[in-house]
């Protein structure tokens, strides 16, 4: 099982908002495919799946905020 965590993109720890999930729970995901999009005051970024597998859990839904290092999803 691989955990998907919120990366630190900017120079400071900012809360980010989940803008979009490109996959639903149960979907097959491929390493390198867009998985979700996050945004904060100064940035917007699409994040790809770190591994191939099945998206088994999503902990933060669209519109929810999360901090750097928070668990977002699990891929098995």
């Amino acid at each position, binding site marked *: 099982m691989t955990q998907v*965590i919120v990366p630190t993109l900017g120079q400071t720890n900012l809360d980010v908002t989940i803008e979009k999930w490109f996959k639903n729970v149960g979907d097959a995901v491929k390493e390198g495919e867009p998985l979700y999009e996050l945004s904060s005051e100064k940035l917007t*970024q699409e994040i790809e799946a770190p591994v191939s597998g099945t998206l088994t859990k999503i902990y933060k839904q669209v519109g929810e905020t999360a901090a750097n290092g928070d668990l977002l999803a699990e891929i098995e």
Partner: protein
Amino acid sequence: MNLSNEQLLEIYEYINYARCMGERLEYFIKTGKILGAIHLPKGQEGLQAGLIMTLMDARKNGIKIYTNPHTRDQALMSKLIGLQPYADEMLCKTSGINGGTSGEYHMTCVEKGFLPAQGVLGPVWGQNAGFAWALKDQGKTDSVVWGIYGDGASSRGDAWEAMNIAALFKVPMVFVVVNNGWAMANPVEKEAPVQDLSLRAQGSGMRGITVDGNDPIAVFEAMVEANKLAMSGEPNLVEFKVTRWGGHFLGDNQEVYRDTSFLKHLDDIDPVLNYHKKLLAMGLVKEEDLKRVHDEQDAIILKVYEEGMNKPAPTVDEICDPNKVYGGAY
């Protein structure tokens, strides 16, 4: 300068290495292994390969290069100080070049030629010029300093002072301006009234030239010549024109300030692909070599990072120890 086939293939390795370094950094940031903000080198691999080639060539000829590479120079940084100490520092591990305390921009190891840099970019040229002055004073005629900064930094007042004093004291320094057209979110035409930033060298009576930074051979030739001039008492400036593909840092939404339609036609301007095509036409490589060399270089980088990830991180006390902030530097 006529490059040998071996030299051309060496550059082929470096340009692929630079591409892989950018790809892996992006991957490690997005998977939370490396903390931001990191300025990715995508699109500037031609310049990186040319600079690395010049560094390696200088080493073979007994010339010591001192420089402080910064944003988008990760490939050069790692070749300067060694991939493992570089990667470990990026991962904030005690085995990093500065014990995992420096972050990307403030890595320092004078012994290996990596000069310290402060956070404001333009004034560092002044520090570089001062270091070059010290080299001259000590009679080190086989050494040269590269001050590598962007179009934005070169527009600062301190940068002009540095050029003036370097030219006045005839110090062994090459001013390298990486003109990628963007000072963060500010386009170069809104910060400089000249098209070629190399013109600015004339104000200090220095030679300034503009070179296509996408062509690693042109970069290598220009830097070898620039080094020779600098070491014979003629500091000079070389401007490299390149294209920044991504935002200022990973996460920077450049869509709001920049027309990014060029990203749909990257094959035309891709320095890695163009160099591959050049060697292909010369019969030096085969079509499949691009993927092979890319994957070889990627495997080298990945292995080093994976080794680094299992190493210990510094404690809070170690991070807060002021003597370690510039550990190994002096």
